[in-house]
């Protein structure tokens, strides 16, 4: 972003001001995540940087809170993590299957009432979560699914499908339908065509939609707060209770693990996006 030599002083000043603003915003966005790292290795119970930490004294750091997270007495994190993963995996599977099939239908040019159906399918994304929470709770309570894993999985499928529908329809918009016709003319049945031709081509879109659905389910707390009983506790619920009662360093240890997880998800999402663009022939 070097400025040309002939730039006037006032534009020069403006340019540096702009760079300064951008730097500030980037720090504002990313810095909060990095505060958690060092504090989660704190040897003490306080959530402030101790003198020892400021001087980089090795004794001021410890894995104490990570041990507490894993082995701590009557700690809820093990059960919460297990529940979170089970729920998120099943919710992702459900969202991906329902969402991909629906997206296939939606991107067909024969689809009737496309506008209103699309609006219905992505409505869980637009309606504020608290309202979705209330509505889903009413349904689950009536169906006898409140405080069960099944209920939470179904709720998360509702919240996750819009992401799959959107990403897969976007991928299909660049899809060359003549390949499926070619497959059909060569004698392949529709299911076989889908598995062997369409799916491999749209897979990046499907997986990135799945990642969205996974993260939605894994982070979701509003709806789960209405639905979960004691046995269905998830990581977000435990963090919510923990943060409301008392901010303990153990929560920071959990948070650090979650940041590592989200970094992994970010990397895979980025790789997929690039692969998908390459496959669709979009070069930027």
């Amino acid at each position, binding site marked *: *972003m070097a400025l040309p030599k002939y730039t006037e002083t006032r534009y020069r000043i403006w340019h540096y001001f*702009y760079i300064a603003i951008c730097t500030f*915003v*980037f720090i*504002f*966005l*990313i810095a*909060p*995540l990095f505060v*958690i790292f060092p504090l989660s290795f704190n040897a003490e119970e306080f*959530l*402030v940087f101790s003198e020892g930490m400021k001087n980089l004294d090795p004794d001021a750091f410890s894995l104490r809170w990570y041990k507490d997270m894993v082995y701590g007495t009557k700690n809820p994190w093990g059960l919460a993590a297990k529940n979170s993963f089970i729920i998120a995996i099943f919710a992702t599977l459900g969202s991906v299957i*329902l969402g991909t099939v*629906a997206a296939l*239908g*939606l991107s*067909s040019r*024969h*689809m*009737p009432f496309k506008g209103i159906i699309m609006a*219905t*399918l992505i*409505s869980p994304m*637009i*309606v*504020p*979560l*608290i*309202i979705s*929470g*209330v*509505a*889903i709770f*009413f349904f689950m309570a009536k169906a006898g699914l409140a405080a069960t894993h099944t209920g939470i999985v*179904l709720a998360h*499928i*509702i919240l996750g*499908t819009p*992401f799959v*529908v959107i*990403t897969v329809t*976007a991928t299909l918009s660049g899809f060359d339908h003549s390949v499926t016709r070619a497959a059909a003319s060569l004698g392949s049945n529709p299911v076989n065509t889908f598995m062997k031709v369409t799916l491999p081509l749209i897979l990046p879109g499907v997986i990135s939609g799945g990642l969205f659905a996974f993260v939605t389910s894994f*982070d979701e*707390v*509003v709806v789960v*707060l209405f639905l979960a009983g004691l046995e269905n506790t998830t990581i*977000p619920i435990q*963090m*919510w209770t923990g*943060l409301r009662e008392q*901010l303990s360093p153990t*929560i*920071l240890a959990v*948070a650090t693990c*979650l*940041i590592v997880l*989200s970094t992994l998800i*970010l990397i895979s*999402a980025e790789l997929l996006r690039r692969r998908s663009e390459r496959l669709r022939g979009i070069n*930027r």
Partner: protein
Amino acid sequence: MSNETKQILTTDGIPLEISLKKAERKNKIKAFLLVAPLLLFLIITYIFPIGEMFTRSIDDKMITNMLPKTFKSMETWDGKELPSEEVFASFLSDFKILVEKKEHGKLAQRLNKEKNGFNTITKKLFRQVKRNKIDETQSIKEQIMKVHKRWRNVEYWQAIKRTAPPYTSAKYLKAMDMYLNEDNKITQVSEDRRIHRILWLRTVEVAFFVTVFCFLMGYPIAHLLATLPMKYSNLLMICVLLPFWTSLLVRTASWMILLQQQGVVNDFFVLIGLVSDDNRPEMMYNKVGTYVAMTQILLPFMVLPLYSVMKTISPSLMRAGKSLGGTPFVAFWKVYFPLTIPGIGAGCLLVFILAIGYYITPALVGGASGTLISNQIAYHMKTTLDWSFASAMGLMLLGGVLVIYWLYNKLVGVDNIKLG
């Protein structure tokens, strides 16, 4: 005859037009069948329950079913003088059934909501009924009126009559700090009890300012990301995407650490001499905390749509503007800015809609002055169990969101929404 010969036939001898229509219909059904499972699933588990929220929010059938005979006999009562013997008699027979079913408490509760003072007099009547003190061969009206002086007060009978309709708008009025008074007129509650209106205003205010802050911070960096060479912008994009993929609670937790009185931000302020060490400002459990945390959490939703729009704007347009004699500011304002409006619209809509339904962050960092309408909905769902009131507030919020969405669709078009 001549018509038929003109028609083109397929090899099966069917006119081409019909055959094509048939194929078209088949394709339509096929496409619809693919969408059907998800559509059905969502309608059953999601759309219907939202509709159910509506019936629940206006439902007042409980008392209609409790006092069927009373309301029937009240139909002819003009509501000015005390009702006739017949009304009293049917009220007593309804009440006796309720006592048998042990539901008289519920009735007292419901009536007390309509008018204070019903609890006591219903209890008194219950005792009389329980001891079989009321002699049905004599005037029931006289006997009930003797139980308590309030039974002689016409206002209490008017209150009972007001509860007759099976539907009520009371919950919606309550959400706006209003109620129907004795003359069926909409009245405001006394000034010191108007809590909901404050919450609505605060919710809109917070959502509005968070959107503005997000726009002010998001626009420059989206511009930078879109104009920098790929290898730098990809690196900087991580700063936007990592928070986007990180758990909401993790980010809220880190703001709680940063903003506490002994926290990093205050440390920094002390270090640069902005505030003195023993006079650290309270930045959490108030609106400042809500604004700061929500802005950071929602910022990616502003940056991503802006970025995807800005990416498509060719840099030569700005150069053309400048070469035609515009200063960089003019070229920006007249050429670049108008082209980014779809992105601004999408970003602002997303942030505003997300912010208006926010619940978790305000509850954790907002303290008492940071509570928003969503917190109130959750409170009534989980603590007071007044589900119909929660439904009413939720639907009002939903109505607001839909209006914004509709406006946006009119102004910008929903198709411009992009996910990164």
